[in-house]
């Protein structure tokens, strides 16, 4: 589904953020990407839907080459859902309008169709009662659930999560993770940048560990948590799991 091969990316002439990154996410697979901050994990996931350009290598998404100038990027992006660290709901639109906008403007659905879909998804994330509120009237956890619903409204073939719980109060993390776990169980293809190792051990198929722009470890979940091969990953794990 998502094929990343030999991706290199530089900021400016000398600073390399991604070094020869190669991995893939199969259909229905949940892959967690972790690593220290600055390791390039968010950059890598943003390369997948071309929010970030890269200079070398290629990414193929559902058979379509992302870094091909001929690719219709808006169309391709509409097929991949993305959830951001800071939710990025559109503050001037009501919750339901947040869910309908792209359905109507990008997919060309009728307003009624979009509303019906939006209602269903809000119900699914338990926020139907908030449909006519504005984002600023909701808690962080609620906003992030809306953001997931907004992405799902586009009927994506895969979902990208860029640290979806990093900006949340601890008590709100679980309500967002619950939605994500449900999604994973339904067979959604997911690539998730997160430090939530509980989530990783519960639903991930594979765990990718990145450091300094490199994919240091790309292993099945059991192998990763059982006995990470690289010393760097061992250290990272021991630090974040020790509390």
């Amino acid at each position, binding site marked *: 589904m998502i094929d990343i091969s030999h991706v290199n990316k530089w900021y400016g002439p000398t600073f390399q953020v991604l070094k020869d990154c190669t991995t893939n996410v199969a259909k229905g697979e949940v892959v967690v990407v972790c690593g220290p901050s600055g390791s390039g994990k968010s950059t890598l996931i*943003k390369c997948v*839907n071309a*929010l970030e350009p890269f200079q070398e290598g290629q990414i193929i998404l559902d058979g379509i080459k992302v870094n091909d100038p001929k690719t219709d990027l*808006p*169309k*391709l*992006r*509409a*097929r*991949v*859902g*993305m959830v*951001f*660290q*800071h939710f*990025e*709901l*559109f*503050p*001037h639109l009501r919750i339901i309008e947040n869910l309908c*906008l*792209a359905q109507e*403007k*990008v*997919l060309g659905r009728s307003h009624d169709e979009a509303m019906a879909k939006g209602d269903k998804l809000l119900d699914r994330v338990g926020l139907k009662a908030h449909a006519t*509120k*504005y*984002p*600023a*009237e909701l808690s962080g956890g609620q906003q992030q659930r809306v953001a997931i619903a*907004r*992405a799902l409204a*586009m009927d994506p073939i895969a979902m990208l999560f860029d640290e979806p719980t990093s900006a949340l109060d601890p008590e709100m993390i679980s309500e967002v993770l619950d939605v994500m776990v449900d999604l994973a169980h339904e067979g959604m293809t997911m690539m998730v940048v997160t430090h939530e190792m509980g989530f990783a051990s519960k639903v991930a198929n594979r765990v990718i560990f990145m450091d300094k722009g490199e994919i240091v470890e790309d292993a099945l979940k059991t192998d990763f948590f059982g006995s990470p091969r690289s010393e760097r990953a061992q250290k990272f794990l021991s630090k974040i799991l020790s509390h």
Partner: protein
Amino acid sequence: MNYNWNWHIFFEPNPTGAGTYLDMLMSGLLLTIKTALLAWVIALIFGTIVGILRSLPSKTASWIGFGYVEFFRNMPLLVQLFLWFFVLPELLPRSAGLWLKQLPNAPFWTAAIGVGLFMSARVAVQLAAGIASLPRGQKNAATALGLTTAQGYRYILLPMAFRIIMPPLTSEFLNTVKNTSVAITIGLIELTGQARAMQEFSFQVFEAFTAATAMYLAINIVVVTGMRFLERSLAIPGYITGK
């Protein structure tokens, strides 16, 4: 000082034979309002286009925006009006110049366009600042949903940016109204022009300019009230000022 106050002068017939001095001032007021409104529309349209250009990642676009803004904001308004009114027709091919000079209401159109373009540079700078003040993630979120750049601006960035710059925009609207008085120099008999004419005919200089001042004040009170009303009706529940 030997000055004969005469507040009844407004109700005395003016020398043109058409109505009173008050009618003279009122026709000037009307022309000021017309010129200001047209100039403001022009300022908003061109200011929006150039403001967007300045916020685009494209180097060419931001250079065009930069050049436009510096051209219109670094020349005194008076010089610009002279340029459009006296110089431009001479620079054009003879027939085009002649056609321009013989346009009916030439001072009106020149004033509205001249003031409008002058003010558009200021609107552009403010709009670009408003767009830049939005979180980067907003654009990413719009892009990730498959919205094109144009759609992202139309539905997400501009509605928020305009809300943010509403207070300084009010000041620019007021400046537009006041700046139309410069058009007296190219023969537009707007409010200031009529006040001066009244003074010349009647020698009641204080009454004439007191009335003109009151009328400018009245327009601007309407503008301020209107903009505040607009600001309030566009306020987003829970967001920044809208509580």
